[in-house]
């Protein structure tokens, strides 16, 4: 397994390099730059700004310089205990942001990523708890009113987009009932509405996948054998069927985690959460070159890691699969 993981990590290096190169050059070919604003700056000011940010260097030189700053130069993982400072821990320097001149991209990531991860983690928990419960009930009580109810809820969850569900929840629980704040990220209770909103969409998918996976497994011979041997229904579902039934859910979790992390933009905007998803999307509209690169690199790395984790879990769950 160690060899499998190491090989995957080595394979990730060229992938990252392609992503970095592609992003670096593509954003430069997009019209407009970080200092394009409604109010024109004078040509002299523009020249000085370009010099300040080394934008007047030839593009290849900027690329080489950037790669040099980016290459890990140190290994002090213990520095991560003080905060997510990738520069202190690994010598990875994402440089200052263009949009926020007195902040570095490292610093913004260190501040915002934990918020997005927290949001993503709780949303995923909501999604798993809700989705698995609904899915298991629907599968076990197949074609009864319970199944129809659970499937109906799941279907609704898929159909209602987050930008509708979010404001609806705010309207009911913040403005009318005053149970929660309408937006913000200050006290733990502030996480309830956004995590419910973000989690419910994924819960819906998980419920449908669980139901489908479980139904397939419940029809198999070894389940009939278990039943014939007098195993209780709960034992059959949780001990024998669920492991195989969860396979589709697990393969969905890889992209879902990536989706929750990068797709939290809408939720972070609706609820004014200071997460990285907002920075990720806004950096593109701001042409904040360093921020675009920093977030793309980070998310690419996260997605690669998540897919690896999912592959490892799948082999655990399914003895037919092997590390290769």
């Amino acid at each position, binding site marked *: 397994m160690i060899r499998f993981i190491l090989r995957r990590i080595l394979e990730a290096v060229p992938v990252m390099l392609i992503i970095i190169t592609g992003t670096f050059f593509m954003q430069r070919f997009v019209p407009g730059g970080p200092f394009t604003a409604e109010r024109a700056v004078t040509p002299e000011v523009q020249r000085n700004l370009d010099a300040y940010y080394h934008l007047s260097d030839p593009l290849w030189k900027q690329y080489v310089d950037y790669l040099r700053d980016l290459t890990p130069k140190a290994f002090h993982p213990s520095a991560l205990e003080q905060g997510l400072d990738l520069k202190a821990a690994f010598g990875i320097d994402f440089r200052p942001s263009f949009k926020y001149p007195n902040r570095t991209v490292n610093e913004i990531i260190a501040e*915002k990523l934990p918020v997005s991860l927290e949001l993503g983690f709780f949303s995923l928990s909501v999604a798993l708890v809700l989705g698995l419960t609904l899915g298991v009930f629907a599968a076990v009580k197949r074609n009864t009113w319970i199944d129809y109810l659970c499937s109906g809820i799941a279907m609704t969850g898929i159909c209602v987009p987050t930008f509708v569900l979010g404001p609806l929840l705010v309207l009911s629980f913040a*403005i009318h009932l005053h149970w929660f704040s309408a*937006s*913000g990220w200050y006290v733990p209770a502030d996480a309830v509405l956004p995590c419910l909103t973000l989690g419910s969409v994924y819960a819906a998918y998980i419920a449908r996948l669980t139901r489908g996976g479980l139904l397939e497994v419940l029809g198999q011979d070894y389940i009939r054998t278990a039943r014939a041997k007098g195993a209780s229904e709960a034992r059959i579902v949780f001990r024998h069927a669920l492991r195989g039934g969860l396979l589709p859910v697990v393969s969905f979790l890889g992209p879902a985690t990536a989706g929750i992390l990068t797709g939290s933009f809408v939720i972070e905007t609706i609820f004014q959460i200071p997460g990285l998803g907002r920075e990720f999307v806004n950096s593109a509209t701001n042409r904040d070159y360093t921020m675009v690169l920093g977030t793309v690199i980070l998310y690419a790395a996260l997605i690669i890691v*998540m897919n690896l984790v999912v592959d490892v879990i799948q082999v655990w769950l399914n003895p037919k699969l092997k590390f290769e």
Partner: protein
Amino acid sequence: MIRRFAPAAALFALVFFPSGCARRNAPSAPAGAAPSRQVLRAGNGTEPQDLDPQAVTGVPEGRILTSLFEGLVDEDPRDLQPGPGLAESWDISPDGLVYTFHLRDRLRWSNGDPITADDFISSYRRMLTPAFAAPDAYKLYNYVVGADEYYHGGLADFSRVGFRAVDSRTLQVTLKSPTPFLLKLIASSYSWYAVPVKVIARYGSLDRKNTAWTRAGNLVGNGPFVLKEWRQNQIIAVERNPFYWDAANVKLDRIEFYATEDLAAEEHMFRAGQLDVTYMLPLAKIDVYRREHPDELHIDPWLGLYYYRCNVDRPPLNDKRVRRALALAIDRESLVKDVLRGGETPAYAVSNPSNAGYTPRAQLSGGVAEAKRLLAEAGYPGGRGLPPVEILYNTLESHRQIAETIQQMWLKNLGVAATLRNEEWKVYLDAERTGNYQIARAGWIADFADPHAFLENWVAGNGNNETHWSSPEYDRLFHAALTARTEADRYEDYQKMDAILVDECPVIPIYYYTRVYARSQRVKGWWANPRDEHPWKYVYLE
């Protein structure tokens, strides 16, 4: 099975490890703080780029900076006239070239250090240092003698730039040419603030923007409040500055500025009681507020113009008759009343009528009949034979609605079938800069309450012109106005400039902006004015 899951769970936890150790702090002041403390919670639009007055240019920055710093001269929120700020008085030489500011006695920075005239000079020196690349440096070097040369590297000796400390409390500014609106400019522009250069130097080189001096705890200012807390894209909190010269008259204890870039979310916060005043209000909510919360809805006139600029290099817009016809064929009353609904004023001239006692006399007149006649005269009767016309706008619901409405009006009134082109913000700006457009939507908010702040845009070579239009007579009047003997003479020149713009129509004025926002009735000491300036020292809660 649980045991088999454990390593996976551990891996999962590892990936999410930071979430475990990053507990968010409780807010320093919970929403709805104790009534004894005066805490104002204000929506601030977007997150400020920085709080260094010399490194930023935007409006969201300005709202916070006015709480942390004060200018030499300050604007009266009631009539926008420049009045004493850090300077208690000033003299202007008879030729209008030398301004001598007398600083108040015993002025102090928020760390207790005295403020002297030298602080202003070292601040302006930093602002004009080419390597620092201050985006608004032109607000100094356009006016002050020698500053231009210093900024462009032709002059190395800053003592030859027109700033001089006569003594510790007297600052003298020498101008290149008479600038009748200089006081208004200084009162409204944070580029003219003094910054604590000695403090800044402690955090790094003076010509670097990425130093930590603007962080909470480090930032030293000279305004009514000091920075207490700054959580990016969340909250910026300021509290009373005990060293402020007029601290006794500051009423609020604390102001919390919230980054509220999503208008709908901001409105939710207001209704949930988390905000006392919003930055803006979504268009769709205006009618609801009119009906249900009329006392909280505020629609203030604003010194801004929404207009279409014509690229006069592109046929058929190279013909002023076509431009005028297009300008006349827009039913602005209907546009404002039926589409926008935010109390905007139809614009028939470029200069804003609520502008420091100046109202443009020349107005677009003649209506559709005149428009048809002009188009026929230009050789396109009923729009026949007219080369295609395209309207460029950036992505925003209201820009699309306005463009579609105008497209319909041109089709119905003139037989002109315009096409629409929608671009993302920076692509749209780039198209305007490079002249890759025919007609483009544009907006302008005046920097200070003076017709100059609108009319300077269409002088040849101005970076904000972008129409490729110019007129020697217009440019002559512009320079004549600067040396006019009296305010009345100066305004007379502006009248002629407005008349030229209405006649030639390089731009098609559409409507004058309004500021639409929600404000709790508890908020007092807040005056509606066309600059949307609400000095925090006067504001209080009831």
